């Protein structure tokens, strides 16, 4: 195979990987602060994807524009979920929280199945078949837009956590739960905010994914697992780690799809997960728990 095929596939994988990274960032933020493992993460993403598909097919609203309102809807969903359902569970054993979210995931997947049926849905934008050419490199325009939006969203998130007062308060909760309580932070509200922010991340990522893949109700569990693989690879709780893990997994999947067969590509993602768990359980950029 000529060299430029590899280059094109690798760049495509890298761009998809940035969107994966944003999705995983949501999971990482939630785990890093609330210490709850969001097993319904991919399912929340599929809700956002269906919102984007419905808005597009009914009103021809471009997913790139609808990204912000849909992320806002997911924020409200995440906020309500944390304050209504999950908050009483934060002192329960880990597996108990985990099963609560598994239950939620099952409900979301099958509700989507009942409402939308099992067929794949897609968004046919005007720029769906456009591409940019740069020498030998040809990339799909939709992927470029999606990746650019992902970078923008992630940058805003970094800025939020670094420079705003609420962002600092949330980081304080993550660093020391008791300390945060002592200095008078409203931890329950901050947890709900964090869950909302994580949900907004995955919502935005989901809207952009509609430009890249078709949506079916069954993709929820697939992306939940993918998000876990990415976050564990990058380092649970590390924000740059999530983006790096996303890129790594995106590249791996793209190259595995080219060299072997596309349907076997996630095997390689799982292979990376096993290697990471073996040799660097805290992830590439993660810190070892004290």
């Amino acid at each position: 195979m000529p060299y430029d095929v590899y280059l094109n596939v690798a760049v495509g994988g890298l761009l998809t990987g940035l969107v994966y990274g944003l999705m995983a960032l949501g999971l990482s933020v939630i785990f890093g602060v609330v210490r709850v493992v969001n097993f319904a993460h991919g399912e929340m993403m599929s809700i956002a994807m269906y919102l984007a598909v419905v808005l597009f097919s009914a009103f021809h609203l471009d997913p790139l524009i609808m990204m912000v309102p849909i992320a806002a809807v997911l924020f409200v969903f995440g906020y309500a979920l944390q304050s209504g359902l999950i908050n009483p569970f934060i002192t329960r054993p880990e597996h108990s929280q985990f099963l609560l979210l598994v239950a939620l995931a099952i409900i979301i997947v099958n509700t989507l199945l009942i409402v939308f049926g099992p067929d794949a849905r897609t968004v046919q934008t005007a720029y769906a078949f456009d591409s940019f050419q740069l020498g030998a490199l040809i990339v799909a325009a939709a992927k470029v837009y999606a990746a650019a939006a992902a970078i923008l969203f992630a940058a805003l998130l970094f800025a939020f956590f670094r420079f705003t007062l609420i962002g600092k308060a949330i980081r304080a909760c993550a660093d020391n739960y008791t300390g945060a309580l002592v200095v008078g932070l409203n931890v329950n509200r901050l947890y709900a905010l964090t869950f909302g922010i994580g949900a907004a991340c995955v919502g935005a990522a989901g809207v952009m994914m509609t430009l890249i893949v078709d949506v079916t109700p069954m993709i929820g569990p697939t992306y939940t697992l993918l998000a876990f693989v990415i976050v564990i690879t990058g380092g649970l709780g590390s924000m740059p780690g999530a983006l790096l893990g996303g890129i790594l997994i995106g590249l791996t999947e793209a190259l595995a799809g080219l060299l072997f067969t596309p349907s076997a590509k996630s095997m390689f993602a799982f292979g990376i997960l096993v290697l990471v768990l073996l040799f660097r359980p805290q992830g590439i950029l993660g810190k070892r728990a004290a």
Partner: protein
Amino acid sequence: MAALVARLTDDLSRRTMIWLAALFVALLIAPWVVGDYLVTVLILILYLAYTGQAWNIMMGFAGQLSLGHAIYAGLGAYIAAVLFTRYGVGPWFGLLAAMPVAAGCGAVIGYLAFRFGVTGVYFAILTIAFAEFARIGFDHLGVVNAAAGLFLPVAQYTHNDLWRLRGDPTMFYYVMLAATLAAFVLCRLLIKSRIGYFWLAIREDEEAARAAGIDTFRYKMYAVMISAAVTSFAGVFYAFFYNNLFPEQVFNISQSIQMILGPIIGGVGTLFGPILGAFVLTGLAESLNSALTACGLDLPGAEQVFYGVCLLLVVATLPEGIWPWLARRLGVTELA
């Protein structure tokens, strides 16, 4: 034999024994009383009770959350089916091959996880990753017909052939009943033995168990290997009962989830929880299905939504499961 029975029953109250005996007799005569359709429902219930019991060895006794038990059942199903269709090896010999392979697979997963301190949620995700790996792997494995599926020959049965597991649903019902009973007895023996007490110690506090001198790595390995081997029989049964195997179904995460619902709803760590949970869950789901059919509705996801709601309600309101609560009400021994 008498010693074994005495060991199994020495701490059970008379009341508990009567309930157990009554339940067993009811299950024994059930196929004569109920129709063909209900027999297949009962087979499904016993199948879930059996797999739940097997899963419970890991989670309920040793405290290791596995969400990928489909891999052990799937391996059992494929090994027995391939041996049968290609080499004419009967299911019981197939089981002899399936159990060590499943236990070996469990040992690999356990070794990777326990050696490197992969615990809790990480461990659960590792088990899912292996099951998914197997699903995609088998989807591309030519030897087992890949995604096109593996089919067992279905001949007209003139008689029930227990040795080759070919026959009518009633035969399968009794096979599964015997297996469920055997798993129940095995679990009771395990939990009342030295290994069982070590598991409980690990489940309650692993650090303390290690400080008390228990080789926690070794006993966790025993738990995952025994659980995997026991689960593999369910796979063999699945292959010969349904006569078709697709990686997409057999290794699907929903299979793993379905195996754990019974014990969680019935009561994790109890011996009777998996059985009760399987009855409650399948019973309710079947009623829901017939109610929907009666209303002329065809909603493919409705049953799963129902499972999700059940799981949600039980985890939120009865974290111990139904059985410990019910056992107190009935005034019977909780059984571990």
